[in-house]
């Protein structure tokens, strides 16, 4: 297993840029193409934004831990917080067309995470620790073309 990478940020949106740069570098080094790396970066941004807005309800001084665990063909990112739990069962995949035509803003982040990644898992201990795991598998079509 390759080395685990960890970044801890405070729960403020001005830290999102730093998170994106951290994830982009790790994804590129793991072997993902720029396009695939951008998808991973966006999914992590969405997960962190949800933590800031919903788990911590915009409190600026809480912590978010981002762990990147590269292992053979599996690139896993965990986003961990100690805020309000989010019930993933309550976030159904929206009927996108209907959702958009009613101009509803919420729920798009969860939809994007599930669309951009191969697997999204939730692990919650209410009041103690919430974790969202974003997983993408490195396949030849997602790798940087070599030649």
């Amino acid at each position, binding site marked *: 297993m390759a080395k685990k990478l960890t970044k801890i940020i405070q729960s403020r*949106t001005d830290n999102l*840029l730093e998170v994106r740069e951290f994830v982009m570098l790790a994804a590129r080094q793991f072997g993902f193409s720029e396009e695939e790396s951008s998808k991973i970066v*966006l999914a992590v*941004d969405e997960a962190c934004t949800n933590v800031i807005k919903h788990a911590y309800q915009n409190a600026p001084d809480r912590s978010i831990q981002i762990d990147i665990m590269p292992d053979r063909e599996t690139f896993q990112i965990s986003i961990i917080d100690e805020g309000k739990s989010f019930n993933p069962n309550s976030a159904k995949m929206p009927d996108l*067309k209907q959702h958009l035509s009613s*101009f*509803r803003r919420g729920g*798009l*982040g969860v939809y*994007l995470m599930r669309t951009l990644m191969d697997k999204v898992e939730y692990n919650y201990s209410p009041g103690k620790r919430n974790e969202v795991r974003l997983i993408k598998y490195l396949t030849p079509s997602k790798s940087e073309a070599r030649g």
Partner: protein
Amino acid sequence: MSEFKVHHRDGEGVSVIDLKGYLDAHTAPDLENAFQKLINEKKFNIVVNCRDLSYISSAGLGVFMAYIEDVRKNQGDIKLTNMSPKVYNVFDLLGFPILYEIYKDELEAVGKFGPRK
């Protein structure tokens, strides 16, 4: 560090917003302010030029959704132009091309508003 800029131009009855940099949860309020200002001034014909926009997340997309209804109720529209393929892909993933007019070129979008009455 300057990571996002909104610049606004008026002309020929159409207002153009130029976006630059990263549009995420941190910078989305800047775009909200720009839309709100135009709506307050009753400027409902809006083109958003995304030529220098390098990144967008759902927080940024949500801003477009928040204002489109108001603008269309007032016989206006928000048209989008000059997106990079990377930014277009995010709009596309969320089905935006069904609801928003997206053009390659700003002049084309401005022209779609038709002559001033």
